[in-house]
């Protein structure tokens, strides 16, 4: 068996990498896939709390690469799914405690046993980023529809190409249809035009995500949540299925429509 290693990255912090990793991972497990999530954000561990597994940590990523424990001992089994595991980041070490070569080795080991290895990349483009992408075959870039996040995403695309991950896919997170309607937020086409990479998904800004993060339960499991259904569609696309993109469910209004017609 040879699993797929996917890194979730963004450049800019705070756009929803960790939430995205947790939701995609849980969504894949929901489909019965064997999944391991690696928190590569050493020193700023967070995937554990988003998954609600913070009380079960004994060993971490640095222990594994330094071989002070076996890989299996450090993997924390999820509360809800038997096929979902977390390898937490070390909290009291530096990013330099792991080297790209060690990440490549670890990914090679894990892909023997798992269908998917998802890596939650730290913000930034330094050592932590280089470690996180070292063992990856594919990349998912998370952005929000604002100038700084899109600019950083563009830079990340360039850096991934330089590291031979040529075709990253894009998730546009925290989209607010009402603001798009008013002309105060870039829409999906705008972001797509600028970044020109394949779109993997669109996630609406949804308060339910904050609530589920409070509880440590990824929103992909909630059938009623808009963000949750967007994540389920993303998971389907990762699995190679066709899935609808979020309908933004807004009407431009007659004036804006005429205005756009004239402008064209």
């Amino acid at each position: 068996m040879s699993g797929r290693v996917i890194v979730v990255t963004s450049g800019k912090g705070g756009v929803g990498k960790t939430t995205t990793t947790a939701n995609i991972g849980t969504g894949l497990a929901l489909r019965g896939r064997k999944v391991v999530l690696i928190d590569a954000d050493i020193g700023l561990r967070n995937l554990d709390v988003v998954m609600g597994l913070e009380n079960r940590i004994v060993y971490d990523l640095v222990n594994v690469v330094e071989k002070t424990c076996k890989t299996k001992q450090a993997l924390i089994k999820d509360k809800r799914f038997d096929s979902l595991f977390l390898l937490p980041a070390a909290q009291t070490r530096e990013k330099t405690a792991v080297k790209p070569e060690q990440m490549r080795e670890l990914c090679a080991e894990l892909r023997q046993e798992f269908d998917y290895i998802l890596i939650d990349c730290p913000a930034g483009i330094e050592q932590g980023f280089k470690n996180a992408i070292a063992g990856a075959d594919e990349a998912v870039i998370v952005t929000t529809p604002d100038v700084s996040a899109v600019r950083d995403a563009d830079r990340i695309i360039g850096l991934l190409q330089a590291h031979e991950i040529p075709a990253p896919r894009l998730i546009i997170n925290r989209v607010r249809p009402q603001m798009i309607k008013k002309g105060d937020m870039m829409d999906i086409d705008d972001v797509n035009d600028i970044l020109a990479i394949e779109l993997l998904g669109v996630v609406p800004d949804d308060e339910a995500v904050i609530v589920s993060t409070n509880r440590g339960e990824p929103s992909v499991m909630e059938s009623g949540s808009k963000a949750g259904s967007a994540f389920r569609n993303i998971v389907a696309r990762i699995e190679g299925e066709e899935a609808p993109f979020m309908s933004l469910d807004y009407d431009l209004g007659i004036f804006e429509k005429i205005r756009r017609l004239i402008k064209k």
Partner: protein
Amino acid sequence: MDLINKIFREETTSKERAIERLRLVLVHDRANVAPGLMETLKEELIEVISKYMDIDEESMEVSLNSNERSASLVANIPVKRIRR
């Protein structure tokens, strides 16, 4: 009158400003990310222009400039002699 104003309103939306600013900033970002892009461009320019004229390669300058609204490639290439 209100109706016409609504359709023809001149001021740009904040989203349009965002796209405009992003496009410009990315012109520079991308030129910097691809190391040697400007150098390669310069070398190839020299190659092409040299077919038609002798130029002063030493004092030639090629740069990417931008202002509020647009980005432009500015080349200052002193010509020594036109070939016949």
